[in-house]
């Protein structure tokens, strides 16, 4: 940019100050603090007193940490389901049906629905005695499933809420991708005699690769951060059936062990960063590697 400087030298900083102040204190400052707290004995009543890596030692020695982390890993299975559902929805909306605009809005309604509301609605459907799902299973002569109390069904029911609430959002990402596919390419493929399936596989899908990569990374990171669905759906279940962030909430705000909770926060952050780094690597290196997901 070569514009001349018309403004007072302090002007840009004044424009930036409110936002930088808030983000600096509550995010950058908090990240430094969480690392410090994780190395201290710090409870609701005492501390913080430096204890080195003691919190990490205790954390890694505790069974519930590994169980919750394992559950978080299981929760990542929601990502492929989300990708299939949202790509499918995007293709249906993109098919130029008469009411496709209305359908697009309708499919976005779950995204707008507060997670607490969505979780309660599904909790009604998953209710073990009276919920629609078990009633249907009974009609089919099948035994009821303990959706809200038995591992891993508890995770399946929470993941259903995540899927329901999320697919409309990622559908928009795929729609943006589909709209960006050049018409000439599709026409050229059709002229060359390619059928619909061929055109989709050879022309549309490759140009969706950036969208697929984006949805893959964003949805799996938010799966690792899940809290609301778990909190509402299976609050009553033992913590060992829940995931990493609910465990952090339990340790920090019910047990009051801030040091330990900070160590867990750092551990979750490390997992998320490692996961997104590997993801970015894979999606940059092997193009279309997750296209079949």
């Amino acid at each position, binding site marked *: 940019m070569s514009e001349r400087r018309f403004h007072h030298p302090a002007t840009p900083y004044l424009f930036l100050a409110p936002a930088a102040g808030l983000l600096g204190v509550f995010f950058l400052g908090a990240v430094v603090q969480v690392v410090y707290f994780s190395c201290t004995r710090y409870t609701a009543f005492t501390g913080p007193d430096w204890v080195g890596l003691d919190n990490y030692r205790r954390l890694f020695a505790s069974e519930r940490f590994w169980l919750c982390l394992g559950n978080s890993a299981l929760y990542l299975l929601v990502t492929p389901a989300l990708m299939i559902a949202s790509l499918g929805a995007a293709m249906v909306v993109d098919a130029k049906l008469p009411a496709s605009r209305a359908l697009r809005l309708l499919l976005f309604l779950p995204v707008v629905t507060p997670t607490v509301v969505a979780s309660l609605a599904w909790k009604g459907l998953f209710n073990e005695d009276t919920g629609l799902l078990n009633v249907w299973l009974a009609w089919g002569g099948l035994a009821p499933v303990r959706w809200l109390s038995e591992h891993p069904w508890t995770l399946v029911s929470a993941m259903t809420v995540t899927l329901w609430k999320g697919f409309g959002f990622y559908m928009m990402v795929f729609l*943006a991708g589909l709209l960006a596919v050049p018409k000439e390419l599709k026409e050229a493929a059709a002229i060359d005699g390619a059928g619909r399936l061929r055109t989709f596989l050879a022309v549309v899908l490759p140009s969706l690769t950036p969208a697929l990569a984006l949805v893959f990374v964003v949805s799996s990171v938010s799966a690792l951060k899940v809290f609301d669905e778990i909190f509402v759906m299976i609050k009553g279940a033992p913590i060992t059936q829940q995931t990493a962030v609910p465990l952090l909430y339990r340790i920090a705000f019910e047990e009051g062990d801030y040091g330990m909770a900070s160590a867990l926060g750092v551990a979750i952050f490390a997992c998320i960063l490692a996961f997104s780094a590997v993801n970015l690597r894979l999606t940059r290196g092997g193009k279309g590697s997750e296209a079949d997901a």
Partner: protein
Amino acid sequence: MIDRRPIWLTLFIVCCALLFALLAVGPAVWLLVIAVQPAGTDLSSATGGLTLDNFKAAWRDGQMGRPLLNSVLTTVVRAGLNVMLAALAAYPLARMRFRGKNLIFLALLCTMMIPEQVILVPMFRIVVGLSLYDSLIAAVLPFGVTAFGIYLCRQAFLAVPASLEEAARVDGAGSVRIWWHVMLPLAAPTLATLALFSVIGAWSDLLWPLIVLQSQENFTLPVAVTSLMGQFSTNLRAAYAGAVLALVPIIIIFILLQRFLKPEMFGGAVKG
């Protein structure tokens, strides 16, 4: 398209469309069904008769009036702050040259990578340190601006032709006036989209308000609904009625603002 779609394919797509629509709306309808049934009826049958008792119970026992007001207040303030602060910060990042610009932009992108969930403890301690615990200000302040919002606004400002800005300079307008009279109006669609996203996010937020709000008179709707679930395990239906109360306003707002929701907005910038 030149070639016609075969009829079986159109039928298949219509079936998929109906299925998706049913899945999207079904659970919300089910919520309403549960909320208007009298207590004690079988949850699986929709034939138990109609009642508004659950709404009365939610209003009386959960004192839903107050959470409704609190949710409206925190959502409006948070969305307003989000748009204003992001637009302020984005202007110099898009249009001015100054020392440390790249460093500041990099730091911003870094905060986009930090999930609030992992820094809950220090965020909570900061709020307590500022004597803001159990106040609506605490529920809003840390999320008064997001790096995502700044990024979005910067993209919009970058697209504004420089000639417009120069013309305003020649006419003697200062930076604030240019920001207000030139940049903001031209970036209005982006600002509206950002406002819509902020409203949706703020209205739905559970984890942070759950941590910093303690007394019932400060609860927002999601917190009040979850507390109803715990309080009235015998009459869960009051919680369902509360959930309906939390759902209706946001759907109305969404329908009013839906024209700012375009797929293109999701192309490059997606919140991480």
